[in-house]
């Protein structure tokens, strides 16, 4: 892909994020109604979209890993790494916002019965080990392969862990979505959708930005080696 097209993508996603994130925050505080849970319910609009964005990051990272293994496309390894890196950051934020929500709603900072939170803890541990793996292997084709395989294990682990935690725990997590569609008012659902779009746009912008930086680093290193 040409550099100008990449820059356009970065500019586009950054603009989208810059518009959507403030809009989402404004909607959360001025438009969405306060429901019976009071003000602390507002954290829902951040917690859930961040969690979904983290899944998107992990999924995208695994997809790029698959592309690397399948087609051997150069650069796919870096793209996979950047997506997983952002996924870990979003995952940490999910843990943080979930913990805050649990404190205000149920009075505890940590609840083992809150399944999504436990799932994110497992994923956080799993993907933190990804960095240990990546930085203990010399850069090169083998490292790219190992990381790609590990990222594929990750997307398989997500549903398996979800099932495991469901089996392990009793059930107290509030259910906002079920088979009968979203259990919230239309204005709340609209706000939620905008928040989700904002988080995904933020992910896309950060992804393009970090990728551009990493590519620049690699190019600079190449030029330095040519000069030396």
């Amino acid at each position, binding site marked *: 892909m040409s550099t100008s097209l990449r820059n356009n993508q970065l500019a586009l996603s950054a603009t989208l994020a810059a518009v959507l994130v403030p809009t989402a925050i404004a909607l959360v505080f001025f438009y969405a109604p306060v429901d019976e849970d009071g003000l602390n319910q507002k954290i829902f609009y951040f917690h859930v979209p961040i969690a979904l964005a983290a899944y998107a990051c992990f999924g995208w990272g695994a997809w790029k890993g698959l592309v690397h293994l399948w087609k051997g496309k150069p650069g796919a390894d870096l793209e996979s790494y950047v997506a997983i890196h952002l996924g870990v950051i979003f995952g940490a934020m999910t843990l943080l916002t979930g913990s805050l929500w649990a404190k205000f709603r149920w009075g505890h900072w940590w609840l083992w019965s809150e399944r999504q939170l436990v799932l994110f803890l497992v994923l956080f541990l799993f993907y*933190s*080990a990804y960095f240990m*793996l990546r930085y203990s*292997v010399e850069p090169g084709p083998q490292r790219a*392969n190992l990381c790609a*395989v590990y990222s594929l294990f990750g997307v*398989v682990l997500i549903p398996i862990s979800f099932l495991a935690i469901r*089996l*392990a725990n009793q059930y107290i997590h509030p259910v906002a979505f079920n088979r009968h569609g979203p259990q919230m008012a239309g204005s709340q659902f609209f706000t939620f959708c905008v928040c989700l779009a904002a988080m995904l746009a933020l992910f896309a912008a950060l992804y393009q930005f970090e990728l551009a930086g990493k590519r620049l680093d690699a190019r600079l290193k190449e030029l330095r080696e040519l000069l030396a």
Partner: protein
Amino acid sequence: MSTYLADVATLARKDLRLELRVRSVVPSMLLFVVSALVVFHFALPSGSSDLAAKGLLWVAIIFTALLGLTRAFVAEREQRLLDGLLLAPCDRSAIWLAKTVSMLGFLVVAELVALPAFALFFSGIDGATVAGVALANLGICAVGTVLAAMAVAGRARELLLPLLFLPLAIPIVVGGVGASVADEPARYLGFLALYDAVFAIISWASFEYVVTE
């Protein structure tokens, strides 16, 4: 197909023969699992329920497997054996399957001592626990072998494997402990079988990329 299985059998026999000559992995696993059970006896206050002990049995099994898996690919890396194996005219996944089979053998030997020792020190073992252990072994060895091959590629080696393995072992612990303590173990055993099937397929398919460049 028959040549594939013959390759697997040859490679697994190589591992077993190596172990019979050197006797490094299995004795350490045996000693470790018995020591761990003794430690757990003193870690549980008197009056603790049998359920807590059953949970600790699973901790012992996971860590014993981890001990064996850390050594799984050490000879291959240190003696440059892996280069020879990769040059051999066999499917790379056969290397994974053979190593999984031999690790499974080691783990089963360790458990043949561990489960009676557990029954002796703590409480009796029922059929569901044995079935859970048998199913969990498959998943532990299938996933553990791929991760062990990953870990030896890095500088950290022995340090790395537990970090890679434990998050993936959490569902095994959930299924195993559930099978041991729940009134209806069938769904937990089913979950373990699902885990085995899913991770065996992905490990089998991805092993080639772990050992080649």
